[in-house]
């Protein structure tokens, strides 16, 4: 074994040393509260605004349109509930998709419980929504469309610009959960007609517990966290200055290397996909082929194998990955994303997600390709489901 191979970068990433060094002074030397008026706090205020500028530049927004939050989940909650509550009593209709992150799905369910109507758009077998279907879902009282930029499980990138255009035409707010996309693929909120966008620092080598919500100037959304006057009175709580500094720096670095990194990771991704298809029988790629897929996402189903066992076997071999198997989820339900793209229970059971990162090397990929086939075939050999599957396959081919 050659050290640990971390292939769960969609779950979280480690903080960059350069980012950490940038953050450190704000824990001890410059610990002042940015709201205080003495000169000692000046540095902190400047640092906050520098970070706001870095985030704004990364997505082509204005600094005044960036609000720092406690992470992607808070940003998603704020966008949905804030837009809904801004309607002051009149309910209305929200359109989202079946494959959103739970931060969106559970917020939408919460609002549905309060009397708002929610439409969950289905997706095709690659995980993409149908624009015609979106057009057909608009109602007189639709006030918000929330569609994720790229999916965290299967890596599907949505036709965001087209969605933005449709929403603009109808004067409906467009929010996108871009937690998996920011820092990984280019985003331009102006060109893409995005009104609100959620992002999270720890998905691109920033610290955990800090994120941002982009709110286009003029968008009406209700405040979500009430308290002091921070973030122009829209998001109370003393600013997490070190975290915010880390967010800005991490994003700046990610944007600097976005071209080379996405090309490099796409190449490794395709090498991994091709290798698995060549060496493991009945491997099913979940999500799109090369086009329209996040550069770092690989997701397969291996019929006959259960995902949790796969993760533990890989862990023993020094590889960290994840699964959408029912057995590994606390609720014992299979991944809603895999079901939405039409997988049966047996296939969603045997799903394996590997998400690459800046530290992933060609050697890592080759090691996975050397290790995985034996793990799969050993577990398949002790699987009655695999036995049944093979028997049926033979019947079909005879």
């Amino acid at each position, binding site marked *: 074994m050659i050290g640990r191979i971390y292939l769960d970068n969609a779950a979280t990433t480690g903080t960059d040393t350069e980012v950490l060094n940038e953050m450190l002074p704000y824990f001890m030397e410059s610990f002042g509260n940015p709201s205080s008026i003495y000169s000692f706090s000046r540095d902190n205020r400047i640092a906050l605004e520098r970070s706001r500028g870095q985030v704004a530049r990364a997505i082509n927004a204005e600094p005044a349109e960036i609000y720092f939050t406690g992470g992607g989940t808070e940003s998603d909650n704020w966008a949905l509930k804030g837009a809904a509550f801004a309607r002051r009593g009149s309910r209305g209709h929200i359109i989202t998709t079946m494959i959103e992150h739970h931060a969106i799905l559970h917020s939408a369910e919460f609002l549905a419980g309060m009397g708002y109507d929610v439409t969950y758009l289905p997706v095709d077998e690659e995980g993409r929504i149908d624009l015609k279907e979106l057009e057909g879902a608009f109602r007189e009282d639709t006030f918000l469309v929330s569609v994720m930029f790229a999916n965290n499980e299967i890596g599907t990138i949505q036709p965001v610009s087209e969605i933005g255009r449709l929403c603009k035409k109808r004067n409906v707010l467009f929010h996108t959960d871009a937690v998996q996309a920011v820092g990984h693929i280019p985003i331009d909120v102006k060109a893409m007609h995005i009104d609100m966008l959620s992002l999270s620092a720890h998905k691109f080598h920033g610290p955990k517990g800090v994120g941002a919500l982009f709110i286009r100037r003029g968008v009406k959304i209700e405040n979500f966290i009430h308290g002091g006057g921070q973030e122009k009175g829209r998001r109370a709580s003393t600013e997490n200055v070190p975290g915010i500094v880390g967010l800005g720096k991490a994003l700046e670095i990610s944007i600097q290397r976005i071209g080379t990194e996405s090309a490099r990771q796409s190449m490794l991704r395709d090498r991994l996909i091709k290798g698995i298809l060549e060496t493991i029988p009945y491997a099913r790629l979940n999500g799109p082929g090369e086009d329209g897929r996040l550069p770092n996402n690989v997701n397969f189903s291996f019929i*006959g*194998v*259960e995902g*949790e*066992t796969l993760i*533990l076997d890989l862990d*023993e071999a020094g590889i960290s990955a994840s699964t959408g*198997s*029912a*057995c*590994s989820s*606390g609720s*014992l339900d*299979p991944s809603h994303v895999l079901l939405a793209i039409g997988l049966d*229970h*047996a296939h969603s*059971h045997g799903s394996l997600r590997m998400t690459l990162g800046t530290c992933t090397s060609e050697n890592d990929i080759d090691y996975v390709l050397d290790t995985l086939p034996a793990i799969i075939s050993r577990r398949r*050999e*002790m*699987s*009655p*489901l*695999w*036995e049944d599957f093979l028997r049926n396959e033979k019947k079909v081919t005879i």
Partner: protein
Amino acid sequence: MYSDKVMDHFRNPRNVGEIVDPDGVGQVGNPKCGDIMKIYIKVENDIIRDIRFKTFGCASAIASSSMATEMVKGKPLREAWDLSNRAVAAALDGLPPVKMHCSLLAEEAIHQAINDYRERMGLEPWKEGPGHFAELEEHGH
């Protein structure tokens, strides 16, 4: 999250495989998460001489299958029948609460294999005790 014993039985499951000419076979599915277990037994003088299993399921399901087969091998059928999933879980130094249902798979598959054998012998199949279903309820299916 798993005990060392669970991990040991998961990594190196005992009694994996099939018996070519079995005296009894049991196959059960788990309604909770869709897992499957299949058990083969070879019986001599009312004693389980050999037992093999195949399991599609999580580490807890595989470890429970492995442990359960070890516990009933060489035992009289009645004793094997009385092995509860709780005893299997205890022998594995415990299972996480959400994973208790996985150990039921082994208990049920053994019951089925035994009754399959009894039917082949022209004997009346044994009935599940009342406690069994209480336990199913408890683990919330």
